[in-house]
C-alpha cells in the first residue's frame, strides 16, 4: 500500500475540489483551508519525492491497470523521473503561494469557495500532466487543465468579457488539442505504444520520412495551443480577464508551460525529424520577438505581462527546437518564479488601485506601494536577464544554444532588447511620476497574505539561478558558456532600458503611437475577418439548409402532407350509411371480379 502513496500528491487536490464542491460551498473559510492544505500536502509530497532516492534517478511507482485492448495499453501510472519530480515540486509550490495570495486577493468575493475548488481542480489536473506516464493519460489531464483554465478565466462570468475570453481560450485550445490527439494516434500507430517509458526504446523501429514529421508537428500543435504560440497565441492576452492569481498561476507560471513540458517529454520523437525541430525552433524564435514588440504598445498592466509571457515561453520552445532540454527546463523554472512574481505584483497594484489596470491611470505608485515596486523591479531585472538574477542564468544557457544559429540568436536577443524596453516602460509609467487617477491616489499595500508569496518569489527570483536545477534533472550543465552570445544578449538587454528611460521618464501619456503594435499585428482581426466570418457564413448556410430543407421541407413537409391527405380524405366520410354500403358493395364486387379473373387464368 505504501508504494501507492505518491498518488496522494496527485489526488489530494482532487479530493479538496470534490469536498468543496459537494459540501463546503457555503463555508468559504473551510473551503479555503481545505484547498490550501491539500495544496500544501501536495507540495510537501512533491518535495519528499524530489529528494527521495538519488537525484536524477527514477522512482518506480506501481501503475494501476486502466485501458487495455488490442494493441493499446495505457495504465494509469505515475512517471517519477527527475523531470517530473522537479516540475511537480514547482507546480505545487507556485500553486501553494498563489493559494496564499488568493486568500487575501479574493477576501471580499462572495464566490471564493468556487474559486478555490476550481483552483484545486487545476492543481490536480496540472499534476496529472506532469506525472502522467503515457500520452493517453497526459491528454486526459491536458483536457482537464483546459477545463479548469476555462472555469477560472470565466470565474467572474457575469462580466461579458470574461465569458468571451473563457470561450476563446477553450475554443482556441480545441484546435491545438485536435493536433495533439492526432499526434498521439500517430505515435501509437507508428511506434505501437503510448507509454513515455517505452517510447525511447521503440523508436529504433521508426519508419522515418514524412509520417514522423507529421506526428511531431501534431504533438507540437498541442503545445501551440496550450503554450499559446503562434498562430494559436490569441487566447492568452484575453485570458487576463480572469482573477490575477489565476493569470499568475495558470497563464504565466505553470499551465502555459505545460506545452513546453510535453515537448520535452516527447523530444525523442521530435528529434527523428529535422523538419519538426526546425519548425519548433523557428516558431519559438519568431515568437520571442513578436509579442515583445506588441507589449511595447499595450496599456493594460496584465496584458503587457501576458505578452511578455508569450515571449518567454517562446524562448523555451526555441530551446526545445534546438534540442537542448536542460536550458528549456531551467528557464521554465526561473520563469515560473519571476513571472509569477510579476503577476502577483500586478495583482497587488490592481488590488491597491481599486481595479485600475491601465498603466496610464496609475503613476506614483512607487511611493504608495514601495514593497510592490521593489518586487516588480526585482521581477523585471530577472525577466530581462540581468546578472546575477535568476533569468540571467537560464537565458544565458538558451542563448548559448543558439550560438550556431545566428539568425535565431539575433531574433531572440533583439526580443530581449524590447523586453527590457517595455518592462522599464511599465515601471516608469505605473510606479513613477504622480498619480493620474483617483484609484492610484489612494493606492495602498495589501495584507500579509499578499505580501508573503511575493516575498518568497522575490527571493527565488534573485537567488533562483543558484538552485541546482541541472542536478535535479540529473543532467550535466549543457551551458558551455559562449562568450559572444552572453555579451551581445546582455548589452542588448541593457540597451533596451535606455530608450525606455528617456521616452517614459516624465511621460503622462504615451508619446509613441504605433498602430500595428497597438493592434497586435491584427491577428485577431484577421481571424475575425477570415476565419470567423467564413465560419459564420458556413454556419448561416447550414442553418438555412436545416431551416428550409430539413425542418421546412422534410419535417414540417411530411406533417403538412399527412394533414392535407387527411383533409382530402375526410370529405369521403359523408356520414350516409347507404353510400358506405354502396362503396362496400362495389369493393366486394371488384374483389370478386379480380378473384374470378385470376382464377380463370
Amino acid at each position, binding site marked *: 500500500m505504501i508504494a501507492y502513496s505518491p498518488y496522494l500528491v496527485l489526488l489530494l487536490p482532487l479530493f479538496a475540489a470534490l469536498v468543496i464542491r459537494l459540501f463546503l460551498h457555503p463555508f468559504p473559510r473551510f473551503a479555503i483551508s481545505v484547498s490550501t492544505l491539500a495544496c500544501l500536502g501536495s507540495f510537501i509530497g512533491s518535495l519528499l519525492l524530489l529528494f527521495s532516492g538519488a537525484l536524477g534517478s527514477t522512482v518506480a511507482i506501481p501503475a494501476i491497470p486502466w485501458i487495455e485492448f488490442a494493441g493499446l495499453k495505457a495504465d494509469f501510472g505515475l512517471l517519477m523521473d527527475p523531470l517530473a519530480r522537479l516540475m511537480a515540486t514547482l507546480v505545487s509550490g507556485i500553486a501553494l503561494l498563489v493559494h496564499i495570495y488568493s486568500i487575501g486577493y479574493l477576501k471580499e468575493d462572495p464566490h471564493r469557495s468556487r474559486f478555490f475548488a476550481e483552483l484545486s481542480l487545476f492543481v490536480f489536473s496540472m499534476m496529472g500532466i506532469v506525472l502522467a506516464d503515457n500520452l493517453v493519460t497526459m491528454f486526459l489531464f491536458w483536457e482537464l487543465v483546459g477545463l479548469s483554465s476555462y472555469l477560472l478565466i470565466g470565474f467572474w462570468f457575469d462580466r461579458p468579457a470574461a465569458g468571451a475570453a473563457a470561450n476563446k481560450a477553450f475554443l482556441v485550445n480545441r484546435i491545438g488539442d485536435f493536433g495533439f490527439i492526432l499526434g498521439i494516434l500517430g505515435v501509437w500507430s507508428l511506434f505501437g505504444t503510448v507509454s513515455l517509458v517505452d517510447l525511447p526504446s521503440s523508436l529504433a523501429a521508426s519508419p522515418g520520412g514524412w509520417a514522423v514529421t507529421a506526428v511531431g508537428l501534431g504533438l507540437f500543435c498541442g503545445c501551440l495551443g496550450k503554450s499559446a504560440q503562434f498562430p494559436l497565441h490569441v487566447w492568452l492576452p484575453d485570458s487576463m480577464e480572469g482573477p490575477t492569481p489565476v493569470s499568475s498561476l495558470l497563464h504565466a507560471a505553470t499551465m502555459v508551460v505545460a506545452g513546453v513540458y510535453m515537448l520535452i517529454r516527447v523530444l525523442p520523437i521530435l528529434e527523428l525529424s529535422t523538419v519538426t525541430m526546425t519548425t519548433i525552433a523557428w516558431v519559438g524564435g519568431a515568437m520571442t520577438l513578436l509579442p515583445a514588440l506588441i507589449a511595447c504598445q499595450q496599456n493594460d498592466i496584465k496584458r503587457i505581462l501576458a505578452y511578455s509571457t508569450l515571449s518567454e515561453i517562446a524562448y523555451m520552445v526555441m530551446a526545445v527546437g534546438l534540442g537542448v532540454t536542460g536550458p528549456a527546463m531551467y528557464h521554465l523554472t526561473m520563469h515560473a518564479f519571476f513571472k509569477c512574481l510579476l503577476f502577483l505584483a500586478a495583482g497587488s497594484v490592481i488590488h491597491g488601485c481599486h481595479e485600475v489596470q491601465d498603466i496610464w491611470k496609475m503613476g506614483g505608485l512607487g511611493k504608495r506601494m514601495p514593497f510592490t515596486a521593489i518586487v516588480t523591479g526585482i521581477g523585471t531585472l530577472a525577466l530581462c536577464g540581468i546578472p546575477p538574477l535568476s533569468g540571467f542564468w537560464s537565458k544565458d544557457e538558451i542563448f548559448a544554444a543558439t550560438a550556431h544559429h545566428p539568425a535565431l540568436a539575433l531574433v531572440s536577443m533583439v526580443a530581449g532588447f524590447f523586453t527590457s524596453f517595455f518592462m522599464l516602460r511599465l515601471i516608469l509609467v505605473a510606479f513613477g511620476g504622480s498619480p493620474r487617477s483617483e484609484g492610484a491616489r489612494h493606492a495602498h499595500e495589501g495584507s500579509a497574505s499578499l505580501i508573503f508569496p511575493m516575498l518568497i518569489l522575490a527571493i527565488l527570483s534573485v537567488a533562483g539561478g543558484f538552485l541546482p536545477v541541472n542536478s535535479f534533472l540529473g543532467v550535466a550543465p549543457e551551458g558551455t558558456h559562449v562568450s559572444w552570445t552572453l555579451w551581445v544578449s546582455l548589452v542588448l538587454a541593457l540597451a533596451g532600458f535606455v530608450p525606455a528611460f528617456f521616452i517614459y521618464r516624465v511621460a503622462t501619456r504615451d508619446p509613441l503611437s504605433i498602430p500595428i503594435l497597438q493592434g497586435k499585428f491584427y491577428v485577431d482581426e484577421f481571424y475575425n475577418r477570415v476565419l470567423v466570418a467564413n465560419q459564420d457564413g458556413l454556419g448561416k448556410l447550414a442553418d438555412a439548409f436545416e431551416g428550409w430543407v430539413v425542418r421546412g421541407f422534410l419535417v414540417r413537409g411530411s406533417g403538412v402532407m399527412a394533414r392535407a391527405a387527411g383533409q382530402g380524405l*375526410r*370529405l369521403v*366520410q*359523408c*356520414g*350516409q*350509411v*347507404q353510400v358506405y*354500403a*354502396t362503396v362496400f*358493395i362495389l369493393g366486394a364486387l371488384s374483389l370478386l371480379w379480380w378473384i374470378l379473373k385470376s382464377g380463370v387464368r
Partner: protein
Amino acid sequence: MGGEITLGHYLVLSGALFLIGLAGVVLRRSLLVVMMSLELLLNAANLALVAVGRFQGIPDPQVAVFFVITVAAAEAALGLAILVAIFRIKKTTAADQMASLRF
C-alpha cells in the same frame, strides 16, 4: 328444360333475391325497410346454401344455414332496438338523416 327444377333455378332465384335486397339496402330511405332488405340478403344466401346442400347431398351447408338464421335473429333484435332508440331521439327513420358522425 322439361319443367324440372334444377340447382340453377335455385341459384338464379337466390341471386335475384340478393340483388333485390341490395337494391333495398342501398336505395330505400326508411331504415326499417333497409333492415328488411338485409333479411332478404341473408335469406338469399340461405336459399343458395340449402339448395346446394340438397343437390350435392351433403349436410354441411344446412348446418351453416342454422348459424345464419341465428345471427339474423340476433341482428334483427339488436338492429330494431337501435332503430327504436334512434327514433326516440330523431323522430324519424330516414337513413339520410343519420349523419351526425360525419365531419
